[in-house]
Every structure is written in structure tokens, then in C-alpha cells.
């Protein structure tokens, strides 16, 4: 456990002294804030119209009108930028020939994989934390329902686990960072799109399976404010699978 944290700390330091994390966070925040503020503007002008025509201020379920759309948008933006965060984790070591050092170190492979994963997840969690200024900002204008927001953030955090473990796996496959990023895009977008296939094959066991595999179906429940062991199991399983695959690949490199 201590070893995992030591490695994670080292990786975190690398993240924060290189410009990549800052650039990612800046771009992510600009897009998210922009989308959120447009949503606020839309809801506000609908309110204005209704108030003019009916004379009273309309009641909204604000979580539904304001925050649900932004969480879906955020999940897509994160899907697109997370591979850039994970692509270097193993690929860089291989390219820089430092992987031999790591492999011959007293750390077990499990510790190495978990350490790197943990570091990436902390960065991811910090990114999410930064977006918290949006609901906090809204408290001065309206009543913010924190419970469904907490569920939504939990959903994104767990979904991030899938993004990162798959990215880690992609990074362990190659020594080229671009290739690693492209592979993880492929895997994640595949899991994203499988829901669309499910719709066309609805009402059949295959359709049911596909919709179960779809990332967005499971995120949707969290974003609506429902914590379901079904969705927890799904996200955790995919994360563990990604980590297991990474483990296998890294170990195979030891005996190759």
C-alpha cells in the first residue's frame, strides 16, 4: 500500500511540473463553463418568457433543467481529454528506457499499475473539483439541490475510473504516446456508442446486453440522482478489468 502511494506521488509530481495537466484543465474548464453558462442563459430566458406571458415565475426542477445536461457534456469532454492524461504513463517509460528500472525495482507489478492509476485518478478528481465552482456560484441565484449533485459527481468519478484504466491499458501496449491515446479513444468511444446499437436491437437479449454495456446508460442513473449497485458494479468491473489487462500486459513484458 505504501509503495503504491510512493509511486503515485512521484507520478503526481510529474503531472504537476509538466504543462499538460494545466493546459488540459484550462481547456476543460473553458468549455464546461461556457456550456454551463449558456444553459443558465437558456433556462433564465425561458423563465423570462413564461413570466411575461403568464405573470408568474415558473417552477423548474433545476437539477434536471440545469445540471443534468452539463454532466452529460462534461462526461463527453472528459472522454476526449482523459486519454491525453494516461497516454504517457507506460509508453513514456518504455520509450525512455526507464521501464527496465521500474521492472527491476522492488515494486510488484500490481503496485506499479495501481500507483500510476491512482495518480491519474487524483488528477481527474481535481479536475472535477474545479467544476464545483459552478453550483457554488448558482447558490446566490437559486436553491441548489446538493444531493443529486453529489450522486452525479460520484458517477463521473467512477466513470473516470473506466476512462483511466482503459487508457492505462492502451499506454501499456505501445511505446508511442499518440498510438496509446488513439487506442484508448477507440475503446472508450466503443463503449460509448454501444448504447446506440442497443437501441436498434431493442427488445432482445442482445439489445439488453448492449445497453448494459453502454457507459452512458449507467451514467444517466447517477446524473438523475439514483445510486444503484448495478451501475456501481458496472463501473468498478470495467475499471478492474482495465487494470487486470494492464497487469497482464506489463507482466508479459517481463518475460518477453
Amino acid at each position, binding site marked *: 500500500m505504501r509503495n503504491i502511494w510512493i509511486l503515485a506521488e512521484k507520478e503526481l509530481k510529474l503531472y504537476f511540473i509538466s504543462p499538460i495537466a494545466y493546459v488540459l484543465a484550462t481547456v476543460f474548464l473553458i468549455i464546461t*463553463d461556457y456550456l454551463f453558462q449558456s444553459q443558465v442563459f437558456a433556462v433564465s430566458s425561458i423563465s423570462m418568457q413564461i413570466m411575461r406571458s403568464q405573470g408568474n415565475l415558473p*417552477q423548474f426542477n433545476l*437539477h434536471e433543467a440545469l445540471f443534468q445536461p452539463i454532466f452529460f457534456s462534461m462526461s463527453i469532454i472528459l472522454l476526449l481529454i482523459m486519454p491525453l492524461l494516461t497516454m504517457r504513463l507506460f509508453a513514456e517509460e518504455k520509450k525512455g528506457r526507464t521501464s527496465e528500472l521500474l521492472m527491476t525495482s522492488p515494486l510488484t507489478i500490481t503496485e506499479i499499475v495501481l500507483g500510476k492509476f491512482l495518480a491519474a485518478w487524483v488528477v481527474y478528481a481535481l479536475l472535477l473539483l474545479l467544476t464545483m465552482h459552478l453550483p457554488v456560484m448558482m447558490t446566490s441565484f437559486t436553491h441548489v439541490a446538493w444531493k443529486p449533485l453529489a450522486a452525479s459527481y460520484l458517477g463521473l468519478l467512477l466513470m473516470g475510473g473506466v476512462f483511466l484504466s482503459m487508457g492505462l491499458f492502451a499506454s501499456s501496449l505501445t511505446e508511442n504516446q499518440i498510438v496509446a491515446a488513439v487506442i484508448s479513444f477507440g475503446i472508450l468511444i466503443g463503449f460509448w456508442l454501444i448504447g446506440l446499437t442497443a437501441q436498434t436491437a431493442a427488445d432482445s437479449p442482445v439489445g439488453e446486453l448492449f445497453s448494459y454495456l453502454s457507459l452512458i446508460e449507467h451514467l444517466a442513473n447517477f446524473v438523475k440522482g439514483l445510486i444503484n449497485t448495478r451501475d456501481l458494479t*458496472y463501473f468498478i468491473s470495467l475499471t478492474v478489468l482495465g487494470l487486470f489487462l494492464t497487469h497482464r500486459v506489463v507482466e*508479459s513484458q517481463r518475460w518477453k
Partner: protein
Amino acid sequence: MRLKQTFSILSGVAGVGCGLAGLFHYLIWGAPLWVTTALEGTALLLLTLFLVTHFEMVKDISTRRSTKFGVNSFLMIAIFIAILSIINFILARHPLRYDLSGSGAFSISPQTVSVLKNLKNEVKVIGFFPERSNVKGQAKDLFENYRYETDKIKFEIVDPDKKPTVAKQYGITEYDTIVLESGGQKATLRTVSEQEVTGALIRISRASKKSFYFVEGHGEHSLDDLERNGFSFLKDSLEKEGFAVKKLLLLSEKKVPDDAAVVVIGGPQRPFIEEEKKALDEYLARGGRLFALVDPLVKTDLEPLLAKWGVKLENDLILDPGSSLSAVVPIVNPGSYPPHPVTDRFNLGTFFPLSRSVNFDPATEGTLRFEPLLKSAPGTWLTKRVEGDLNIDPSRDKPGPIIFGGVIRYKDEPAPAAAEAGKPDPKKMRLVVIGDADFATNGVVRSAGNGDLFQNVVSWLAEEGDLVSIRSQEAQNGTLLLSNQQHRFNFYSSVLIVPLVIFSIGLTVWRRRRRL
């Protein structure tokens, strides 16, 4: 070592076998679910055992670095995926949930839960939703909540555009309709709400349907009449909701049948005779539910009977000069109904071609209570000169608002039982009188909220709505209105300042690193 290896491989093979058997059982038969779960559970145990023992073995021979290793690794990944799939399968079938939505979107009322737990037969639910439906997601969530409590409910969505034959088979004429089907009984719903759905579930899971009797023999609007003046549309919609609609000839029956949930007198044109009135009076006295629609300008001789129960009818007519339809068609706008369970959350307007006033006789005040149901607008008048010209004469006519629909019931009416209505109790008597019957005829029943009002009244009389109390879902609602300045402040501070802060931190770190 050998023995251990044999054991490990055996458990692996058996595990895969169990897993596949469970999968096939689920895909082909589907039920009972516990068989699948048991098979998958065994598979899970065996495969985990295999993986653990195998891991050790792999480590044992890892010094050999043979090509066999690649095969082993592949096998292990396959087994690992199988284990994860089984865990997901089992947990997806038996989920635990925690509702944080705050709006109660994922929680259902205890009454609904007890209805679901008492379901004996499987209920098939088909939602006819087009591809882009506003309420499809809501319906999905609602039935997901129901399925969480019981496995007796099977929910499926049919797109009526893609499968018109199925829609035709169920007689679906409108989008966003839900059909519940169980043991030969059917109910069709047009609204997606817990109250409606649970009410329908109770109706179709009863041994027999609740019966609504319509009195005949005095020129009432007929249930069979398909013309403008008939009640056939009304009959159709009540039957679709899962009620039995029957005719009642009081003269030959002598008394109101015991299975009558509600008796409707739908606009009689000729007088009732004493025996008939006696039968109705007895019915009310034993706790019956009567819905009387009494038109103005006709002689029905019902006045003494109704007066005995506290309702005063007079030979008068409501005039509504502000009505957009006609001066003799009072309109009740949404939001102007007196507060009452019947019109609670009812957001449609209604109109009543030719209506008389309905009043309470204060002399009978005591054990009975009168609750107004319909009230004309403030600009209306009540006139007693019902013939000749209908000009308003402020000196003789009474200014509105005029009450022309009301409820009589006991002040100490027993609370409705959560389950089926129990034994007869005189105190359960409910009487609704409306000074007009035309509003529910074929010609206008599908306009505005007329049909809905009639259905609301009869289902309230039959204690349908009382079975499920609805939770208020408005607690979480809020308002949002930003001035342009506030919006601009918000926009620039979050789109520019926050990212800028992050970016400058990054820049500082990077420059300091470069200098080092």
C-alpha cells in the same frame, strides 16, 4: 502438485460448464430466475477457485519462460472476464438502490409497494411511445421503480409507428398510451403517474371489475347512443380504464344491485316514480355512491329525494355573458375550481351547456357536509325566468359566482381502507350533483376537460384515487431568473477568470522549472 493441477483444471471446466448452462437457461427459459442465479453463483465459485490455484501454478512455472505462458495469460484473461460478467449478471438482477434525486423520482409510495407485493398474477405493461416521446423516459423510470419491488411486472416499449399491427391489436389511437394487462383484464392509461398506474394495477388485479351503473328509463343519455347526445364515448373510456359499465332499469330491478360501485343518473328527461326514488334512497342510506346529473328546464321529480340528502335544486338557469361559447354555456377555467380532491391538480377547463344551480339546504346541516365542486365565473348571473328572452335583469337575477356542482358526504366519513373497500357502511355515502348532463355527451365530452372531469368524479366516488396518496414532488423545484448584468458577470467570471487562474499557475510552474 499433479493432483492440485487436475483439481484446478476440473474446477475450471466445471465452472465454464455451469456458467454456460446458466446463460442458456436465462436466454431460453428466462424464469425462474433463481435457477440461473444458482448456476451462475456456482460458476463464480468454481472459476474463482480456478483462477486462484492457476495463478499460483503460473508463478511456479514462470521461471521456464515458455511460449505456453502466452496461452496461459490469454486463458486467464478469458476466465477473469467470465467472472466479472457473472458478478455483473447476478448483481444486475438484484440491485440495491439509494435515491438521492430529492424529487422522489426513484421512490414509490408505501401503498404502491404493498399493492405490488400483493400482486398474484403477472402484469404485462406495454407503453406505446413514439421514438421521440417526452414521457418515455419518465415511464421507463417509473416502471423500473415498480420492477425493483416485484418481478411480476413485465414492461416493454412498443413504437406504434414501427409496429402498427400491435398498436391496432390493442386499439391504440394516441401516442404515449400505456396498456396494463393481467389475467384477461386490461386497463388503458393516457398519463404516466404513479397514482394512475397503481390505481390501474389495483383495478386489473381484482377478481371482478368495479361496476358503474347508469340509470335508464327516463330518457337519460344512452350508453348505446353513438350520436351527439349519447354517452357511448363515456362508456368506451370508462371500460378502457378497466371498469364495467352497466345499465340499471330501476323499475324491474326494484333495488340497486349490491355490486354497484357508483350509480349514475345521466340527465333524465321524464319523472322518476316513487318506487324508483325509494330504491335510490335505500341505496344512499346503505352507504351508496350516487352521481346525479340533473339538467335544468326538465321535470324529474328528483328534487324531494335530493332535498332529503341536503341538496336544493331550483328551477333556474345560469347565464354567462362572458362565455366565449354562448351565454347559456358557463365555463369553468382551470385554476378556478373550488378546492376539492376531485379537482385537485386538475388543470383543464370545462364547459356546461345549460346548467342550473346546485345548493346546500342549511336545514339538513348536522351530520352531512356540502363541498362545492363547480363554481361559475364572477360575471355570471342566475335567473329564474327560464322562458322567453334571457336578458339579465339585475333587480331580480342573482349575481355570480354560482355553485352548480357539489358533493354531499358525512362529516365523519370513515377513512378509505388502503386495500379494497371493506364491508358496507352507511357513513360511506357520497352524493355528487351537477346541474347539467350535456357536458358529458358524445358531442362535447372529448372537448376541453369535460370527459376528464366526469372520470375524476366517478373514480373519486368509487374510491379509486383514495387508494394512492401522492407525494408532493415540488419540494425540489426552484426558480431561476438572472438579469442581463448578473448573467454577464457570471459568464465572464466563470469562463475567463477561473480557467485563467489555472493557466497562470501552470505557466508559473513551467517557467520556474525552465529556469532551474
